[in-house]
């Protein structure tokens, strides 16, 4: 899987190949669970009650700045409450059970998006609940001063989040009218001086360069981790490493080609976005299948529609194999950031052991942000989180290469992330004045549990 060149001089690279292949539109699920979160937006507040009847596309939650979530099926609001989000944390969700006719709300079509004034465009988008940094004047005034700086660069990722996915490519090829409309809208919304940069896979760069007027097209190497979104964003921003939030603070707005295209589609159809493309991959599928489903659709629905079944011991990932979140519940919903659904059969699941580090250094040499991964992981393993942090663990972009190449199959990246989370937790508690803050090491009897001890522990829990 890894492409190791002679002597490993260029480091570890995973080729990112993918043909758009077949795209299938799935039937609507009978029940959806929409998590109240929008990437890059503050907390959303529900604006429906349990028992309410909602139409397709009706607003169910919104932020103060009019970014909104919409009902992705028509039916009754069955439950509003906390449930596990994709990443395992608890988050508020709205559950809708389908009933009656699947009827859309009234469309608010803008006469001609190309000729619309800035004010008309922002007003329409605010009405559609699209999450953009640009708001109509009236709304802007009621919100007061916006803290985020003006956008000077818009970066649209036409490359995939990780190998094996094929979502953005669909919008570059099949869904191009939507993407063109979306990019045109972004172009007219952003200030005159701002740049709109579309990052596309290098092999498509030549054929696409004439297709997107007003946009700066940049080729992205078709290998991982070079195509990692955070590294590409950093390249655009002219720094080594950055995050979406920090780039936004510097006036760089980053969004996926899918988000841009769905913005365009919303404007063309006058309906809020409810759909999402997901690449389903599994050993039993000959090649990955990209399906169009709705936000909040449960994993179970996707599996059923794709004709896949899971058995005990399998692993279900929302995302790909490098960054995907494993799910314990088949009701887990598709979110805005779910580009993939990967099913690993029990025999494909990687078991990370407790083998001691060999100090072979493959992880360190594979790291695209040059963390001393082995060293950091060993510090984290023995509870020396602050030392791990001081070694630069927080630079980690979670690409997953270190754990991919570790011959001892240690949970290397997991340890790095553990150290970072522990330290950030300490920093938060320190700010809150927690007196126990120095006690951020694990209990003193912590040791790597030997195999018999781990078994005993599991037996106890059973």
């Amino acid at each position, binding site marked *: *899987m*890894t492409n190791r060149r*002679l002597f490993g001089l260029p480091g570890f690279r995973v080729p990112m190949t993918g043909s758009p292949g077949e795209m299938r539109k799935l039937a609507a699920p009978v029940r959806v669970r929409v998590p109240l979160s929008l990437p890059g937006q503050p907390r959303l507040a529900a604006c429906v009650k349990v028992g309410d009847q909602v139409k397709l596309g009706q607003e169910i939650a919104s932020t103060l700045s009019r970014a909104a979530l919409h009902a992705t099926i028509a039916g009754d609001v069955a439950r509003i409450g906390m449930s596990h989000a994709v990443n395992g944390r608890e988050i508020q969700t709205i559950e809708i059970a389908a009933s009656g006719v699947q009827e859309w709300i009234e469309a608010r079509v803008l006469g001609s998006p190309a000729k619309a004034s800035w004010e008309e465009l922002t007003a329409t988008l605010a009405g559609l609940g699209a999450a953009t940094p640009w708001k109509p004047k009236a709304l802007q005034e009621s919100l007061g001063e916006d803290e985020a700086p003006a956008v000077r660069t818009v970066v649209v990722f036409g490359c995939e989040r990780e190998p094996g996915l094929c979502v953005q490519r669909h919008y570059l090829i099949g869904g191009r009218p939507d993407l063109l409309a979306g990019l045109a809208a972004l172009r007219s919304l952003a200030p005159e001086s701002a740049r709109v940069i579309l990052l596309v896979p290098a092999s498509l760069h030549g054929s696409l360069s004439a297709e997107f007027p007003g946009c700066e097209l940049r080729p992205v190497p078709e290998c991982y981790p070079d195509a990692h979104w955070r590294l590409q964003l*950093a390249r655009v921003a*002219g*720094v*080594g*490493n*950055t*995050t979406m939030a*920090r*780039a936004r*603070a*510097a006036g*760089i707005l980053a969004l996926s080609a899918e988000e841009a295209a769905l913005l365009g589609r919303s404007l063309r159809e006058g309906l809020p976005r409810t759909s999402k493309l997901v690449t389903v991959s599994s050993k039993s599928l000959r090649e990955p299948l990209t399906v169009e489903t709705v936000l909040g659709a449960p994993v179970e629905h996707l599996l059923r529609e794709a004709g896949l079944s*899971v*058995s*005990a*011991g*399998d*692993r*279900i*990932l929302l995302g790909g*194999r490098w*960054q*995907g*979140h*494993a*799910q*314990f519940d*088949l009701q887990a919903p598709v979110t805005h950031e779910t580009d993939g659904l*990967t099913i*690993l059969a029990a025999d494909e*699941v*990687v078991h990370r052991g407790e*083998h*001691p580090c*060999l*100090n072979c*250094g*493959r992880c*360190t*040499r594979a790291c695209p942000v*040059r*963390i*001393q991964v*082995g060293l950091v992981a060993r510090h984290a393993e023995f509870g020396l989180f602050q030392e791990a942090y001081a*070694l*630069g663990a*927080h*630079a980690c972009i979670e690409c*997953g290469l270190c754990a*991919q*190449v570790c011959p*001892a*199959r240690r949970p290397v*990246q*997991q340890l790095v*992330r553990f150290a970072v989370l522990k330290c950030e937790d300490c920093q938060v508690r320190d700010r809150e004045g927690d007196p126990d803050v120095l006690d951020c090491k694990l209990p003193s009897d912590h040791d790597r549990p*030997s195999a018999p001890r781990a078994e005993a522990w599991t037996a106890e829990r059973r």
Partner: protein
Amino acid sequence: MQRPPLLSVAAAPHIHDGSSVRRIYLWQLLMLVPAAVGGVLAWGPGAARVLMLAIGASVLCEALVARLRGRDYLADFSVVVQGLMLGMLLHAETPWWLILIGAALMVFVGKHFFGGQGSYPFPPPLLSYAILLVSWPGQLDVARRLVAYDVSFPPIAPLTVWRSFGTTGGFPPGGLLLGQQMGGVGSSMVLLLAIGGLILMLGRYIPWRTPLAYLAGIALSAQIFHLVNSAAYPGPLFHLFSGIAVFVAFFLITDFSCTPVNPVAQVIYGLATGFLTVLIRTLGVWPEGAVFAVLLMSIAQPLIDKIHPQPVVVEVPAQ
């Protein structure tokens, strides 16, 4: 209602390239076998006895430690490789009790005293060999112990001949390369070891910068001495092919625990160890300088490994 299946969960990433510690050690074992077989063919059944005793005793010691620590250490074959390396360093007439002491020293002191795999500061076979060499120099003196063998080349180790008599005349580089020198069972099978080492390097089962830098360090420093006084100091080829230099380069200095992981540090480490090897061989008491050069440099390894690029930390881009 049917219960949903019990799924397996873990934190990302969920991918692995299939490499394993066992495969690394099995490849090392495989690449040591030609030299070991060559040694047995050259030195006869005595050599086979040394190798088997070394491996057997090491495995037994490791099994004992595994039992005491409650873990499985034997599954990855590391101790078989290390036992074989120890056997290859010893000469064909090494007494059985010395081999047993060596194996016990290697496993208990060299390896597990420091915390086991990944934690030891010195290559265990080399540490054990060094202790034996210092404690029983007479027993490990190849010239004295291998008198009974009828060989076609001078019956004294080439480095000893050079240091004692100031001549390297009886040792053409070609002969040295083919193992025509007194020495350990397998450690002087230079050509076979080099081929095995190169295959390991290409397969990435050992780091490649360290051995090449080590050999370059030896060649460079030998050349410097040779240029200063070509009569007293032999050229690079003699230094590279005599003694255990090649064995050290491909199999001992590359022990992951004791070699730096950062590219620049690996090169510095290799060059410095090579230089120290020639320095000890030329000016020191022990003709085989490689043993002590590696042990000395191993101590400095964590320090040398501090030479690495800074992590690319998260920044706020300029406005």
